[in-house]
């Protein structure tokens, strides 16, 4: 018998927590994006676990779309990081305190 779904759900919850903590404490925009990826992966793991438990392919289809959106988000986000770095020579989010470019 396979391990219960709760084990994977708890693993996903812990992974989400680690990602959230990193997002709240690290300053580098690049590391923050990586922590965002951790959180997205935790959610993906939850979706796959529930897809297995509920025997519903919809969960896996949702993970497919989450992956596409994550790829688009990282592309645009890193483009913004590059654009900001060109002006400020830093990826620290603390120094981005004004709207003016």
């Amino acid at each position, binding site marked *: 018998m*396979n391990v219960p779904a709760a084990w994977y759900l708890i693993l996903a919850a812990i992974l989400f927590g680690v990602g959230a903590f990193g997002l709240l404490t690290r300053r580098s925009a*690049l590391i923050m994006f990586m922590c965002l990826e951790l959180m997205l992966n935790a959610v993906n793991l939850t979706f796959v676990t529930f897809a297995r438990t509920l025997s519903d392919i*919809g969960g896996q289809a949702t993970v497919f779309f989450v992956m596409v959106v994550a790829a688009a988000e990282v592309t645009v986000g890193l483009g913004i990081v*590059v654009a900001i*770095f060109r002006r400020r020579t830093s990826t620290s989010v603390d120094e981005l305190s004004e709207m003016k470019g």
Partner: protein
Amino acid sequence: MLALSYAVPSILIFITAALLTLVGAFGVLVMKNPVHSALSLIMTLFGVAVAFIAQSADFLAAVQIIVYAGAIVVLFLFVIMFLGVDRNDTVRVDPLVGQRIFAGTGVVITVGGLIALMARAHWVTGAMSVSTGGVALAPGSGNVQQLGTAVFTTYIFAFEATAALLIIAVVGAVLLARRERTSDESES
């Protein structure tokens, strides 16, 4: 023993996935060098892929490796090395007073609440879903066909929307990362 009521291979697979995932996640968190963080992220992504395979999501595990570990992390590494920020990050300084404590408390409350909710609630009834017409999820690679059918029938509009989203993202990224020659010359 609790462990003996389940098959030993599935427990070993779970432990492998959990170790890979959590060690990689903590690596992303504590590494000072962004390159090392990105490599730790690859470890986490492989761990999640192992968990996907263990839960009969083979196609998603392959996509996880190809898209995440193969494309997104490489994009991260490319940007890190392109910008030359692979020196020490300011991990130690703490401009906001007590930021770590508040973040840690909030995260512990959230995760603890999630786990407590999972321990008490009964979300999973064992009933078949309505959307698949009561067809059970096939184990292993058997559900690649099911996934394809679902994506190209039930979720066809979402699938088409992702195509537009990807095009917009690519064009936006090119626009953002492009060097604006005219404005640079006028400023200097």
